[in-house]
């Protein structure tokens, strides 16, 4: 038999049988992440299933992030329904303001190499950055896992992505993953796992790896691993891949995903000069310390162009505190940014910063679908924190490379 991919290894380990691509296996799940958005429906399904106690309260974390602090009475009451359940079951609770669920799952060490994690959110795949097989499920699927401690999985085929050479200055992990998505397409990885390789991962940071793993779902991916010598789990040398994609990092340029799909790739040069109204730095994709710092380094000493608004939302309380300690928040606020408490905020359009009709938005998040940020009449461009910061200074979409201080 040929060797195994990382996905095959983790699903074999958790099902107690040899799991090969295409098989359907029943697995013990190590950890479950439930954000407030889908948590309400998870709790309802749990009750409808006549669940009494969760399988293990130490394996389940509820996070108030997608719509917290709540913007109105109605949502506050729905969150109370969910919070009452959390308190009565004794599961792990991350209250509003602690951060985005995916950031917390990695920061607190709940996700780690070789673990099997499910989350009631599509960006659960982020934990592939630390070697976990992590994937999104719906609310009722989550309730079933909370009761039984198990779920069924179709073992995915794996696409291998080889990144060669070094990334040029002024380009970031966001530009890499937008380039990969542009090449593979929004459906190109549907039902598939990803393994990313390259010397880049020996040099880049955890923040960079999380940005890349986070967006594999934008190609339909089930999970994705950023492989390097310190990941803690590796595929066999003779593992079988359904497809291999080669990307030359030397050719990566600052880029955008144009409205209204994530694979609508363009180099910044193609859209440079387009006026912007609103910019958002945050989310499980690019709300980490290095993202805030990259933007602050460009904005420091400057001012937002007249007519441009900038909202900054750190992805966790730890990131917020570090950004405060190291002067990053001061640089951003001095330049004119508004800062909101750690949460999903403007990314998903349910609280914290909705764009107006006809506005052009630059966002460091992961989706630019029509209506994504709460208004179907706004145009969202996905960008790196560097492209966003340079554009905030000029008021038009701007190539960040001349603004990067070596």
């Amino acid at each position: 038999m040929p060797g195994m991919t990382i996905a095959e290894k983790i699903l074999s380990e958790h099902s107690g049988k040899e799991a090969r691509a295409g098989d359907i296996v029943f697995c013990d799940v190590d950890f479950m992440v439930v954000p407030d958005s889908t948590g309400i429906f998870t709790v309802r399904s749990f009750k409808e299933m006549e669940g009494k106690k969760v399988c293990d309260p130490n394996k389940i974390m509820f996070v108030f992030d997608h719509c917290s602090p709540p913007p109105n009475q109605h949502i506050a009451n729905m969150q109370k329904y969910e919070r009452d359940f959390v308190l009565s079951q004794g599961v792990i609770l991350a209250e509003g303001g602690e951060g985005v669920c995916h950031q917390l799952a990695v920061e607190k060490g709940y996700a780690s190499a070789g673990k099997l994690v499910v989350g009631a959110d599509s960006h659960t795949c982020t934990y592939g950055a630390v070697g976990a097989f992590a994937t999104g499920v719906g609310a009722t699927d989550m309730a079933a896992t909370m009761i039984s401690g198990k779920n069924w999985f179709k073992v995915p085929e794996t696409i291998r992505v080889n990144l060669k050479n070094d990334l040029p200055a002024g380009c970031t992990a966001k530009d890499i993953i937008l380039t990969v998505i542009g090449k593979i397409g929004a459906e190109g990885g549907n039902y598939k796992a990803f393994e990313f390789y390259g010397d880049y991962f020996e040099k880049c940071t955890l923040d960079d790896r999380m940005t890349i793993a986070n967006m594999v779902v934008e190609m339909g991916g089930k999970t994705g691993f950023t492989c390097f010598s310190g990941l803690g789990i590796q595929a066999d040398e003779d593992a079988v891949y359904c497809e291999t994609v080669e990307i030359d990092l030397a050719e990566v340029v600052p880029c955008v995903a144009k409205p209204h799909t994530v694979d609508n790739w363009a180099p910044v040069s193609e859209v440079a000069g387009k006026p912007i109204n609103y910019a958002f730095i945050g989310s499980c994709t690019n709300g980490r310390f290095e993202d805030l710092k990259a933007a602050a380094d460009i904005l420091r000493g400057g001012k937002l162009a007249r007519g441009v608004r900038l909202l900054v939302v750190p992805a966790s309380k730890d990131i917020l505190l570090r950004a405060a300690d190291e002067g990053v928040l001061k640089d951003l606020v001095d330049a004119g940014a508004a800062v909101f408490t750690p949460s999903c905020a403007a990314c998903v359009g349910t609280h914290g910063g909705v764009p107006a009709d006809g506005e052009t938005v630059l966002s460091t998040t992961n989706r630019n679908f029509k209506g994504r940020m709460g208004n179907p009449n706004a145009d969202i461009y996905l960008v790196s924190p560097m492209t966003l910061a340079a554009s905030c200074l000029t008021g038009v979409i701007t190539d960040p490379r001349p603004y990067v201080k070596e």
Partner: protein
Amino acid sequence: MEIKDKVIKYGNDINTDLIIAGKYTKTLSNEELAVHAMEDLDVHFTKKVKGASIVVAGSYFGCGSSREAAPVALRAAGVSCVFAKSFARIFFRNAVNVGLPIVECDTDRINDGDTLRYVLGSSEVINETTGESIPVNPLPEIMVKIFQTGGLVQYFRETGGY
């Protein structure tokens, strides 16, 4: 169970934000979800579905978020079945879990306004307008079991677990 009705046809990549925007998902009322189903894609959807309950799309239907409200909103709006060339994986699981019938087949052979006839679980769908029989991709065994029980809630009530 047999489904027979007219078709409303859409294109590729119908994402979950189009099926039900995030701002409308903060409710436990399926009726409230139904009112806003497909709103940003087709403002007349909830009216159209009353005379044509079968939704047909191209590839990658349901891509994007894990929100289960997407198949729930379609079901509550009166959709009897969704046919597409392919579905995004989380939507696919969610639909089966909440009891919304979904079928993978070659939808290039179905046009807006056609009448389809399909017996749930069978291996082909009949396009009564063109007279064609179109083969469909079978569901995995576990999904058939969950669907036949009436969804994952009912499956767990009856079996107590996997």
